[in-house]
C-alpha cells in the first residue's frame, strides 16, 4: 500500500500528527473519500489543472493560496478558526458557563445529529453539480464551480473530523454513512429534500449557490454560536469559504441579467415580456429568471424546517445551536418569556401571530435568511434599472410552492394569493420553470473553453479572481 504522509497531505491546525488515534481514523476514512470523489465528484476534468484557492492556515494571509492543482490532489485540510480565550456559552440554559471542549455526555446524540445533517449537505451538492463542468460558459466559471466543489468536499472533511475526534465509534459510523448516501438515490438518499434535486444547468447552479448555499450559511452561522467550541470554531472557518459560494451565485445571476438587458438594449427591445424575440438572441428573458428564482427560493426555504419546532427549541436551550448573530441580539439569550411574530394562515388569511420565541427559532432564522436574499436581489435589480428596462425581480411570497412547514398544504401565488388545487395546476407554469423553459435553458448550455470567452447568455465578470486578467486560463483542461 502506498504510504501517505497525512500530516503533510492534510494541512491542519488541530495538531493532527499529535493525535495518533485520530490520525489513524482519518487514514482509514481517506481512501473511501477519494473513491467517492472520483465516482461522484466532477464528471471529467479530474486530470485538468485548475487554478484553485487552497487554505493552508487560518490567518488572513494563509487561507487564500492560489495555484494550479488537479482536483484529486487538492489538499483538503482541517481548520478551526482561532480559539477565543475564555469563550463562554452564549445562550440557553448554560449561558455564561465556559464553552465545552468535549461533548457533554447528555448532548451526544442531538449534537451528532446536527453535525451529520450539516455534513450530509456538503457531499450532496457536489453530487448534484457533477455534470456541470461539461457545459461551463467559460473557464472562469468552470474554475468557480470546481472551487465550490472542492470546498464542499472540505466541509465534509470538517464535519467528519468532528465526528471522528469527538464521537467515537458512533461518529466513525456516521462518517462512513456520509460517503454511502447519494443525492437523488431511491434507496439511500441524502437527508434533506433540496439536496436530492438535480442541478441540471448553470442557471440552476447559480440559483442554487445563491439560495441553497445561503441556507448553508445560515445553518453554519447558528452552529458557529454553539457552546460546543470545536463545532463553533469549525463553522466559523467554513463561513469564510461559504462566502465564495454566495459570490458565485450572486455574481452569476447578476451576469446573466446583465447579458440579457444588454442584448435587449442592443436590439432595441424594451418589453421584457417579449420572450420570443429575446430568446431569439440566445439570452435568458427576465420572466424566466424570475421563475427560477421562485423555484430555488421556495425549495431552499423548506430547508429551514417547520416554523414551530421543539427540536430547535431544545437545541437552543441545550446551547447547541443559536440564533443568527446571537451576540448582537439584545435580550436574555434564554427566551424565557419572549415572543416572536410568525406569519400564519388563519381562517384563510395570512396573519402575523405572536408565538413563544423559543418555539419559533426556525421561523426566525428563515426570516433572517429572507432578508439576506433580498439584499442580493436588490443588486440584480440595480442592473436592470441601470439598463433602463422596466422589470423588477422579486422574492416570492413565503407560502409559495412550499413542501415543508405550515404552508405545505396550501397553494399560493408568488404574490401571496391563495389558490385552490385546480387553479394551481392550471397556472403553476406561469411561476415555475415549465418543461419548455427547461428545454430552452438547456439548449443554451454549450461549453466555452477558450480563455477569456463567455457563452452568449452570460456577461463577463467585472473582475476575475485573484486579480487575474479575464483571459487567464483558469482551467488547463488538457493536462
Amino acid at each position, binding site marked *: 500500500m502506498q504510504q501517505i504522509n497525512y500530516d503533510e497531505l492534510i494541512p491542519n491546525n488541530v495538531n493532527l500528527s499529535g493525535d495518533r488515534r485520530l490520525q489513524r481514523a482519518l487514514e482509514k476514512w481517506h481512501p473511501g473519500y477519494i473513491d467517492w470523489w472520483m465516482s461522484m465528484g466532477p464528471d471529467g476534468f479530474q486530470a485538468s489543472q485548475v487554478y484553485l484557492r487552497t487554505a493552508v492556515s487560518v490567518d488572513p494571509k494563509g*487561507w487564500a493560496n492560489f495555484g494550479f492543482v488537479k482536483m484529486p490532489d487538492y489538499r483538503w485540510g482541517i481548520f478551526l478558526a482561532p480559539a477565543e480565550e475564555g469563550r463562554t456559552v452564549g445562550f440557553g440554559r448554560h449561558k455564561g458557563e465556559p464553552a465545552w471542549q468535549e461533548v457533554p455526555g447528555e448532548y451526544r446524540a442531538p449534537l451528532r445529529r446536527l453535525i451529520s445533517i450539516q455534513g450530509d449537505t456538503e457531499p450532496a451538492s457536489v453530487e448534484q453539480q457533477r455534470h456541470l463542468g461539461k457545459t461551463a460558459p467559460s473557464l472562469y466559471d468552470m474554475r468557480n464551480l470546481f472551487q465550490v466543489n472542492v470546498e464542499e468536499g472540505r466541509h465534509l472533511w470538517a464535519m467528519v473530523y468532528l465526528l471522528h475526534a469527538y464521537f467515537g465509534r458512533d461518529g466513525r459510523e456516521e462518517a462512513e454513512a456520509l460517503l454511502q448516501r447519494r443525492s437523488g438515490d431511491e434507496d439511500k438518499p441524502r437527508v434533506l429534500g433540496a439536496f436530492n434535486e438535480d442541478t441540471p444547468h448553470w442557471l440552476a447552479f447559480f440559483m442554487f449557490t445563491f439560495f441553497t448555499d445561503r441556507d448553508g450559511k445560515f445553518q453554519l452561522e447558528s452552529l458557529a454560536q454553539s457552546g460546543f467550541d470545536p463545532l463553533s470554531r469549525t463553522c466559523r472557518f467554513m463561513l*469564510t469559504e461559504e462566502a465564495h459560494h*454566495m*459570490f458565485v451565485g450572486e*455574481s452569476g445571476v447578476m451576469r446573466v441579467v446583465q447579458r440579457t438587458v444588454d442584448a435587449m438594449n442592443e436590439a432595441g427591445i424594451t418589453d421584457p415580456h417579449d420572450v420570443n424575440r429575446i430568446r431569439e438572441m440566445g439570452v435568458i428573458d427576465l420572466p424566466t429568471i424570475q421563475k427560477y428564482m421562485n423555484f430555488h427560493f421556495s425549495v431552499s426555504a423548506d430547508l429551514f424546517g417547520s416554523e414551530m419546532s421543539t427540536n430547535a427549541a431544545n437545541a437552543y436551550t441545550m446551547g447547541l445551536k443559536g440564533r443568527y448573530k446571537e451576540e448582537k441580539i439584545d435580550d436574555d439569550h434564554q427566551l424565557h418569556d419572549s415572543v416572536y411574530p410568525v406569519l400564519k394562515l388563519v381562517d384563510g388569511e395570512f396573519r402575523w401571530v405572536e408565538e413563544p420565541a423559543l418555539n419559533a427559532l426556525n421561523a426566525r432564522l428563515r426570516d433572517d435568511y429572507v432578508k439576506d436574499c433580498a*439584499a442580493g436581489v436588490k443588486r440584480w435589480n440595480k442592473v436592470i434599472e441601470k439598463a433602463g428596462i422596466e422589470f423588477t425581480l422579486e422574492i416570492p411570497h413565503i407560502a409559495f410552492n412550499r413542501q415543508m412547514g405550515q404552508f405545505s398544504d396550501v397553494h399560493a401565488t408568488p404574490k401571496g394569493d391563495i389558490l385552490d388545487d385546480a387553479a394551481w395546476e392550471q397556472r403553476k407554469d406561469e411561476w415555475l420553470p415549465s418543461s419548455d423553459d427547461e428545454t430552452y435553458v438547456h439548449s443554451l448550455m454549450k461549453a466555452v473553453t477558450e480563455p477569456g470567452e463567455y457563452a452568449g447568455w452570460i456577461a463577463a465578470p467585472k*473582475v476575475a479572481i485573484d*486579480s*487575474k486578467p479575464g483571459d487567464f486560463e483558469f482551467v488547463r483542461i488538457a493536462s
Partner: protein
Amino acid sequence: MALKRQHLIDPEVCIRCNTCEETCPIDAVTHNEDNYVVDPDICNYCMDCISPCPTGAIDSWRMVKAAYGIEEQFEWDELPEEAEYTDEELAEASGDAANDAGGVRSGSDPDEVDEILQRARAGQGGKAVPPPSAAHPYINVYTRDAPAVARVVGNYRITESQAGSDIHHVVLDFGSQAFPVLEGQSIGIIPPGEDARGRPHHVRLYSVASPRDGERPNHNNVALTVKREITEADGQRFPGVASNYICDLQKGDEVKVTGPFGNTFLMPNHPEANIIMVCTGTGSAPFRAMTERRRRRMADAPGKLMLFFGARTPQELPYFGPLRKLPERFIDINLAFSRVPEQPREYVQDRMRLRSTDVAALLPDENTYLYICGLKGMEDGVKEALEAICSEHGLDWTVLASTMRESGRFHVETY
C-alpha cells in the same frame, strides 16, 4: 492639497458577506443595509482584508484630495469616477512621498542607473529626446537609501512549462506610497543581501509592463516581465541573482524598489501618433504597457500601432495568449519565431521586411514613433532591415534615424 490614496470597496462587486469586517483587526470596516465601507480615519493599509475577500471588491482604490467619508460611501451604487489630476498635483504627491521617504527628487538618474541606461541606448546613435506629447516623467523619487517598499501581489510564470525560458509576470503593489511611473520607464530592484565579496548587490532595472494607472486600473501597482537568467559555463549553472530573486518571490513578500528611471523612452500621448514597436522576449514589457495605455484610454485613436515581436517559439513568447485577443483594427501584430521545429528560422527583421511597404509608408510621417527593445543581438539585424526598407522606397535610414531621434521619434533600449 496633497493627494492621498483611499481604500474603498466596490459596491457593484461586493456581496456583503462580512468577511472583511470580520477580518479587519482594527475595525475599520463597517456596513449599513446596502454597503460595506472602509473608514478612512481608521484604515492603516495593513491589507489583511484583501486576500480573504471572495469577490475582489475590497481591492479598490482612488487617489483623492479629500477622503470619502463612510456616510457618503453608504449611499453609493457604484464607485465614483477616478478624477484626473494635473502633473503638478501628481508631482506634489510624489514629492510628498519622496520627502516622506527621506529621499530627494532630482533632474537626473543616479550614476549607477545612468550607466546602465547609457549602455542600453547605445544603439540609438545619439542622445534621445522624449516625444513632445509625452507626459512629464518623474525620476529618482525613491533611492537606494530611501527605497519604496512594495508588496508582491502576484507572481506567475507566463511561458509554458515545457518552454525553455522561464518568464514571470510579477505584480508589485505600493500600498499608500505614491509611485508615479510612465510606460517605457524602468524601476530598480535591489536584491537583499550581499555578493560574494560582501558588497550590496547592484540595482537591476526592469521596464514596467503595465500602464501608468496600474496593472489593474486605479490600482497602485506595476507589473514586470522578468526572465529567470541562468548562465551555464564549464558545466556549471550560475543563476542570476536579481532575476532569480524576483522569479522566486512569494505573494506577500516585500521588495525594495528605486526609481522610476528614464525620461526619454516614453510614449507619445496624442491620438494621431503611430507607434512602431520592435522587440524580442522580455523587451516586450514597455510595449505591453504602451499598448494597454492606448487600449484603455483611446482604443479608437486614428494613429496606428504596429508590433514586431520575436521569440524562439510561441510557447516562449510572453503574453502570447492575451496578444492574440487584441483586435486587428487596434494593433497590427507581426510575430516571428526562430525555433519552431520543421520551420525556417524567422527573426523580427524578417517580419519587418515582409511588411516593407507599410513600414516605409509610416517612417517619414512626423506622427510616427519607432521603438526597439530587447537583446543587444537583435540590433544589427533590425538596423539592416530598416536600411533595406528605406532604400527600397527611396529613403535614407541614416538621415531619417537622426531626424527621428532629434524629434523624439526614435528610441532604442537593448541589453
